[in-house]
């Protein structure tokens, strides 16, 4: 073609990014010694390697050492050895190291970008303009957190040695999200990249060598499932951070149950991209390009479900198709490529299979006319219309360039459709009406909401899911907490409850018989099974009988808690007044509760009175904090504000300990209520009468029906039912170690947020057990991105 031909054709032509530097880098390395452990490069102890290949050609790139369990042991040992010095280093010292890493990465950013594109298949534009600059930003941002630790997180210290397992879709960026906050917090790390994409992590390790990262602080172990399992199960690791599929996330949740390891999971999604009729439609179409056709759709927060208001559906779909026809599918190293190959043949087969199944189930699948390169794992951008909510394309995470479209009639239906998923990672809302957008955003069950935008990320803003998209946040202040710990003062070890065969002796005196029922949906109700549990006084006499709650009572209580909308929707001021009123009414009966404590626990009158007074004080505290534990406004480097909202977790199950039976119970219920959660509480098995005595207090105090539900009975049994209930969002559990471990394992059904004492109670009388430590567990942080400008 001569220049005149080109002048007439006006095509872009090839614009390949040079790869000679990356090829030279590849050629100069011995990847059979790619384990970076304790500052040394090692071969796998078993000598095994795995292959990484180029998705655009299938060509082998390298045979990389495949870490065995023994290698993980060595890495954990190195991290453990490095921990004392690193965690004791000043914030300034750690900040200097993080800064040096960030700057060194900046100096080699094109090499990072080209390697990433070669290894992963993502277009060079994305690795060059998005992944690598954001990774650098994470290190430089977190240098600041290292130095601000004492100021911003008093009483906290690094959690210790952390094991991190990252996916192949953003290999370097996910590494940065994991390592930067860990190093800032004073942790040492053992990180396992994905088998498909080991290369940029190796370059990163080389950067660490040169940037003055002390040996053993960062250990990077290449490997597959064996290495992953060894990390998850390693007793020398105090925290696991995982990004990947929900399936593997659940396996990790189960494997770490009872281990006491801190855990954060960033899993899959089926994020809704909702377009209202007053949206800028052309911009919404570009949003979809950035949402579902970014990184070939291999993005956990991809806007894979397009929800469009009926009146504009045809117009929007027409625009989407026109835009799709201009997407360029081709070599990822070409600067004009919008869509590269998927990462691997298995992924391509999976996407094709899901599209075929979606079509079989009635979806109409459309693809633009475009030729695919002869080799490589390419998939055309695909638009599925006539997708019913039950269609596999609306339900399953495809992790490919496939957009499923549904229409809605009104705002309420849009929210309902958006939330009609087990996932809850991200959501996009398009409307020029700020009233509408900010009305919808808080109602979406998603950890990140973008208003008139999509796939915006920043190191200063938290990212993470609701529901089965996982828990924990990455980025910003909220992300730092995942690598920090504040030791709460412990209470006694909790032993499994023993069921006494011996009936309690009849009490002295002459009183009218009282029936303590369950408290569900604002009413005192009999237990479904109609059995009772005999409760003894400290002296072994009969104190009374309480209902023996069963799984069906838990079911009813959870339904009542879920149905209670007025409490989460009430203003914080309103909740505050109700909690004050509870305190006021409890105070009016302080003597009675003190007497009950003496009777049941054998406490001295002084101790009993103290516990009641402290309980009232604690209610007062949370009443006052209800409107003060507020979110933040993050400032990403863009013309946007990011509102980090504190939202209630939802329905929270609370299993209270025997120690300080009144104070312990209220210390857990009050912060949950203060933040707008509704509660299903299982009080102490030995002293439930303190809870049943509260029914009247609650009834007097304007607590809406369903906000507090109390089910008495066997702790282990009821905790198990709560753990397995898939409509319970959070579970706080103070019971024996076995019950705690079992509940953590059982929570995988919906990945509810579980907090246990691991068989220990807390020192409920301590001030450290009151305040932010509990309030933080009572909220989800939702980051709402609001770009602005007119």
């Amino acid at each position, binding site marked *: 073609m001569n220049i005149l031909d*080109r002048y007439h054709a*006006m095509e*872009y032509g090839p614009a390949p990014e040079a790869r000679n530097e990356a090829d030279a880098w590849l050629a100069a390395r011995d990847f059979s010694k790619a384990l970076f452990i304790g500052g040394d490069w090692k071969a796998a102890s078993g000598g095994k390697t795995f292959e990484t290949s180029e998705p655009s050609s299938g060509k082998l790139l390298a045979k990389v050492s495949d870490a065995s369990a023994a290698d993980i042991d060595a890495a954990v040992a190195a991290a453990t050895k490095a921990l004392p010095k690193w965690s004791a280093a000043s914030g300034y010292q750690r900040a200097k190291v993080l800064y040096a890493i960030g700057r060194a990465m900046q100096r080699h950013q094109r090499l990072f970008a080209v390697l990433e594109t070669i290894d992963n298949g993502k277009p060079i534009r994305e690795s060059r303009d998005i992944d690598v600059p954001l990774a650098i930003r994470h290190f430089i941002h977190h240098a600041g957190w290292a130095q601000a630790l004492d100021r911003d997180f008093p009483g906290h210290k690094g959690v210790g040695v952390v094991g991190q397992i990252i996916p192949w879709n953003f290999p370097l960026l996910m590494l940065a999200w994991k390592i930067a906050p860990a190093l800032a917090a004073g942790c040492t790390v053992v990180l396992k990249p994905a088998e498909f994409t080991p290369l940029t992590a190796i370059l990163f390790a080389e950067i660490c060598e040169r940037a003055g990262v002390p040996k053993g602080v960062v250990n990077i172990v290449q490997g597959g499932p064996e290495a992953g399992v060894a990390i998850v199960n390693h007793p020398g690791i105090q925290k696991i951070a995982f990004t990947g599929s929900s399936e593997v996330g659940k396996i990790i949740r189960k494997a770490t149950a009872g281990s006491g390891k801190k855990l954060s999971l960033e899993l899959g999604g089926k994020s809704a991209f909702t377009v209202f009729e007053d949206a800028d439609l052309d911009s919404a179409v570009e949003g979809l390009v950035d949402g579902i056709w970014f990184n070939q759709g291999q993005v956990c927060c991809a806007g894979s479900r397009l929800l469009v208001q009926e009146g504009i559906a045809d117009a929007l779909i*027409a625009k989407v198709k026109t835009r799709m026809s201009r997407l360029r599918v081709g070599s990822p190293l070409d600067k004009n490529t919008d869509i590269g190959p998927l990462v691997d043949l298995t992924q391509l087969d999976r996407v094709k299979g899901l599209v075929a199944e979606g079509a079989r189930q009635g979806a109409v699948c459309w693809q633009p006319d475009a030729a695919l390169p002869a080799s490589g794992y390419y998939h055309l951008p695909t638009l599925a219309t006539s997708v019913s909510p039950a269609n596999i394309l609306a339900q399953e995470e495809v992790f490919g360039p496939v957009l499923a479209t549904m229409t809605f009639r009104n705002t309420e239906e849009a929210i309902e459709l958006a939330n009609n998923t087990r996932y809850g990672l991200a959501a996009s809302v398009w409307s020029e009406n700020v009233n509408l957008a900010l009305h919808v955003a808080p109602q979406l069950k998603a950890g990140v909401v973008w208003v008139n*935008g999509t796939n915006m990320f920043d190191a200063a803003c938290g990212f993470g899911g609701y529901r089965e998209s996982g828990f924990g946040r990455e980025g910003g202040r909220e992300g730092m907490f995942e690598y920090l710990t504040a030791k709460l003062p412990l209470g006694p070890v909790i032993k499994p409850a023993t069921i006494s065969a011996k009936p309690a002796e009849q009490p002295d005196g002459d009183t009218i018989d009282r029936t303590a029922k369950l408290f569900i949906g604002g009413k005192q109700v009999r237990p479904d099974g109609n059995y009772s549990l005999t409760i003894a006084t400290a002296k072994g006499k009969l104190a009374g009988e309480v209902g023996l709650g069963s799984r069906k009572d838990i079911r009813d209580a959870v339904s009542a808690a879920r149905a209670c909308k007025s409490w989460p929707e009430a203003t914080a001021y309103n909740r505050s007044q109700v909690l004050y009123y509870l305190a006021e009414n409890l105070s009016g009966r302080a003597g009675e509760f003190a007497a009950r404590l003496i009777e049941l626990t054998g406490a001295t009158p002084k101790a009993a009175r103290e516990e009641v007074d402290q309980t009232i004080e604690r209610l007062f505290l949370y009443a006052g904090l209800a409107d003060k534990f507020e979110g933040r406004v993050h400032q990403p480097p863009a013309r946007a504000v990011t509102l980090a909202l504190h939202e209630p977790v939802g329905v929270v199950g609370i299993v209270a300990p025997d120690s300080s039976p009144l104070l312990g119970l209220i210390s857990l219920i009050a912060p949950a209520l203060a933040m707008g959660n509704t509660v299903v509480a299982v009080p102490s098995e030995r002293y439930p009468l303190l809870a049943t005595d509260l029914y009247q207090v609650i009834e007097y105090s304007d607590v809406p029906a369903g906000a507090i539900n109390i089910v008495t009975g066997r702790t282990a049994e009821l905790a198990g039912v709560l753990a397995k209930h898939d409509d319970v969002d959070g579970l706080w559990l103070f019971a024996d170690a076995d019950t705690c471990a079992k509940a953590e394992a059982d929570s995988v059904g919906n990945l509810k947020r579980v907090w246990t004492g691991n068989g220990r109670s807390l020192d409920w009388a301590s001030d450290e057990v009151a305040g932010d430590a509990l309030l933080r567990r009572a909220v989800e942080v939702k980051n709402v991105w609001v770009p602005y400008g007119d």
Partner: protein
Amino acid sequence: MSSTIREADVGSSKVTPLPARAAANTAVPHDHRIARNPGMKLDLGFMESVRSVNRSALERRVASLTKRRSIKADNQAAWLLRAVACMDLTTLNSNDTEERVRRLCAKAINPFRRDIVEGLGISGETIRPAAVCVYHPFVATAVDAVRGTGIHVAAVSTAFPHGLAPLSTRLQEIEASVRDGADEIDVVIPRGLVFGAKWRELYNEIVSMRAACGDAHLKVILGTGDLATLRNVMLASMVAMMAGADFIKTSTGKESINATLPVGLAMVRAIRAYFEETGYLIGFKPAGGISTAKASLDWLVLMKEELGRPWLEPELFRFGASSLLTDIERQLEHHLTGHYSANHRHAMA
């Protein structure tokens, strides 16, 4: 699976062809005729449907657009030649003289050094600016100077650059320029009508300007740097097209903010919406501040990505530019020699 793309159908029978006009350069196929926009009634409902313009999203789109496409080597040379073919070579200075205008016309007729033309292998076709653009007093001079070349003469009229003379005066100015031989008229709108949302008045003014133009093409300058919001840009664009504009144009070059890509994006989206509604293709002319070869490529990419290939012809796309040509010449020389060039190696306008 099937696919169709709605592309501009330039051969559609529902449109009436323009009177035949000689082309400035032979690169334009002679059968490539664009049906002239007859305008339509002022449709406030239609305007309402396009008023959602999200500035932040448009800024993000143009920021990534220029990174998504890269034009290298021979293609870059070809695209730069395209930029020249789509150029209104302009002089709009208060110290312009007839001699200065003649020089500009000479440059338009012979834009490239002979060795560059031969080196690029383009001597088989004539590639040069589509028009020269001057103030009214120099129209006759320019018409004389470019006679027989096919280069159009554009006059800025209607009390350029502010547009604040009485309407009758402004219309007389158009008529005078047309009488002197201008076949393209660049008019400015009074920006106050946009701020006052006086759409009917703005519409009526442009309708009478179009009538005054007769067969001459009407380019409506919005003065986007003055309009404050992209929503105003979108709405003013729609009014201009409904009133019969052949082109919509960003700026006079005299506002403090000239042609920017976000403004351009809003305007080309307006053009697309008008096309989808009426089937008529409206031209676009960014003007002011576009002085580098790199910037001209960004604009061409914007046109190709948002509107498609038909909008890369001088019938539908023009740069209003004065110093751009020299920078393109330098890049073309660099393309041939591998040496970075200097301004003084190329003949000035």
